[in-house]
């Protein structure tokens, strides 16, 4: 009985860590600009597709991964430069809609540049399951947990200990004031898109051996990642991680103990329930707007 529970938990942790990594990207851009970037899922897709096709073409894995991250960052910068920046005086809502358009564009481009097939990457440390007390876990799941942990620590350090990270936070709190004290607001926005594209690519690369990837893999990961970010409190990195794990574990336990037909519904009920009582998410800042 315990072995079954443990297996459900591992299943949930694997999915949850994937959702959490996807959710982190939403948090960064939201932090810097209060924009919800609906093209975040596409950064994940680009990371996965670029690395998978490069490896398939015979490029050594470390180089392929590095290139995939650079490609994704370049796309993130291009998105900011050519789509977000020209509309910088527009409403946040307008910019969000622009990101939706960008995501459709990127999916279309991916179909043309790559193809419509599914692609996979070899697992980083082999495919031999690790047995723990009667349950099993794939080594790649540990990579996902590990990368999520490293990313969250790196982000904490970046936002709290570096000048540029602090400038980013300052911009999100008050754009005008940040500009007045000499923060290059334009540069901050550009960097936040580059950073979240990089993060998306990293996520896409580590999850591809588990979930595979194709040109529209970003839709599901983006949606689940967004749910994770909202549940944890938008703009809070740690919250996105906790939110992702809650969604993943709830789904796995629901399909294990209740019915797999209702697992998605149960995850969404939990999200609705939490947002009903805590509209800013589990770890969100309580917002007070002065009229």
């Amino acid at each position, binding site marked *: 009985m315990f072995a079954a529970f443990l297996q459900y938990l591992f299943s949930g942790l694997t999915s949850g860590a994937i959702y959490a990594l996807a959710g982190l990207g939403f948090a960064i851009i939201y932090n810097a600009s209060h924009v919800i970037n609906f093209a975040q899922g596409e950064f994940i897709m680009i990371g996965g597709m670029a690395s998978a096709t490069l490896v398939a073409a015979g490029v050594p894995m470390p180089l392929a991964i590095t290139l995939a991250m650079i490609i994704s960052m370049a796309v993130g910068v291009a998105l900011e430069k050519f789509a977000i920046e020209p509309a910088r005086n527009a409403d946040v809502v307008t910019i969000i809609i622009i990101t939706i358009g960008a995501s459709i564009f990127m999916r279309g481009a991916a179909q043309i540049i790559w193809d419509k097939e599914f692609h996979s990457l070899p697992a980083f440390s082999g495919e031999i399951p690790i047995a723990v007390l009667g349950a099993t876990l794939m080594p790649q799941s540990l990579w996902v947990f590990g990368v999520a942990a490293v990313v969250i620590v790196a982000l904490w350090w970046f936002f709290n200990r570096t000048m540029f990270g602090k400038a980013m936070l300052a911009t999100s709190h008050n754009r005008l004031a940040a500009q007045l004290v000499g923060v290059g607001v334009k540069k901050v926005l550009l960097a936040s898109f580059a950073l979240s594209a990089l993060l998306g690519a990293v996520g896409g690369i580590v999850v591809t051996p588990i979930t595979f990837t194709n040109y529209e893999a970003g839709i599901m990961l983006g949606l689940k990642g967004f749910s994770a970010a909202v549940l944890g409190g938008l703009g809070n990195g740690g919250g996105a991680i906790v939110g992702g794990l809650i969604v993943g574990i709830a789904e796995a*336990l629901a399909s294990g103990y209740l019915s797999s037909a209702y697992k998605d519904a149960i995850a969404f009920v939990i999200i609705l329930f939490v947002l009903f009582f805590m509209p800013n998410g589990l770890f969100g800042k309580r917002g007070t707007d002065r009229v």
Partner: protein
Amino acid sequence: MRDLVKWGVVAVVATGVCSSAGTASAAEPIKIGAFLSATGPASFLGEPEKKTLEMYVEKVNKAGGVLGRKIELVVYDDGGAGDKASTFTKRLIESDKVDLLIGGSTTGTTMAAVPLVERAQLPFISLAGGVNIVEPVKKWVFKTPHTDRMAAEKVFADMKKKGFTKVALISEDAGFGKSGHDQSLMVVKNYGIEIVADEVYSPKDPDVTAQLTKIKNSPGVQAVFNFGFGQGPAIVTKNFKQLGMGVPLFQSHGVASKDYIKLAGDATDGVRLPAAGLVVPEQLAATDPQKPVVSAFKKEYETAFKSDVSTFAGHAYDGLQIALAAIARAGSVDKEKVRDEIEKTSGYVGTGGMVSMTPTDHMGLSLSAFHMVEIRKGEWVLSD
């Protein structure tokens, strides 16, 4: 793209050998309309279908066409959406004035076109799998692929032969998997098999070990049957190996492409599934009438497009051949006559099997059209 195709066809017509009959009406091309899901989620169906139709129409035209007339192919891409399929069907009927319609890569897009086709009284050959396309029989609607019910029947017959009586079902909770799941439940009793566990997963779930653990802990499971396509079955297969389930895994015809083996790797070893002869042409018995047909089609497709042939491309090939043969027999493109001739198709050997249609069977395939195939070391092995 559409214009390109049109101009391509026009160019072929212009350079082709003019018919010696040379009457004014003979020069007028026969118009075949197609709506396919060449992009979107079902593009793995629509894209090879489109390429196949274009390639063979060109080939037929080079050989002089049918009834001394060239074929003009008009293809639209519905992106897998039912509403677009319905709009394009309307356009094909009313403005392109096609003589015959092929298409509907998915059951959804096909069913969206059915009412329009019935009203316009136009012969229509669908390339989709759902059994509800031809059941109940619709006067103007035919189809070429095997149905999901046949796949389920083939798998259960194989399980029965192996002496399994208690099996678990795990299926995708959408479209193809859902329909396959329902058909499986409907026919399973005929084989004396009991479904002891019935689990589902969403098409894009990253992990299904929870569902498989539940199956593993259900008492008496002797085999597991997975119904779905895309990445889902590949994830099921990998998780299946991870958990060391210790029972055989059966898949549906939805995974009968090399991509499945590529994605799930060596976890596919020992997986059994029903598939058309097209997957294993060189292993078919020399006496099998399908052997020359599928070998030739596989070779032509793979030399032309440099990619592995899929059974979906075969459905389009069969549809086109059945249509052209019917037009040739009818001696004209009179819609009523062509429809009657399609219905009289008998003993046509295609990539999907031997097709013999009747007024009550607008698909004409029998269970023998499927072969049981086992995957060994990443290769399909015929294992009837």
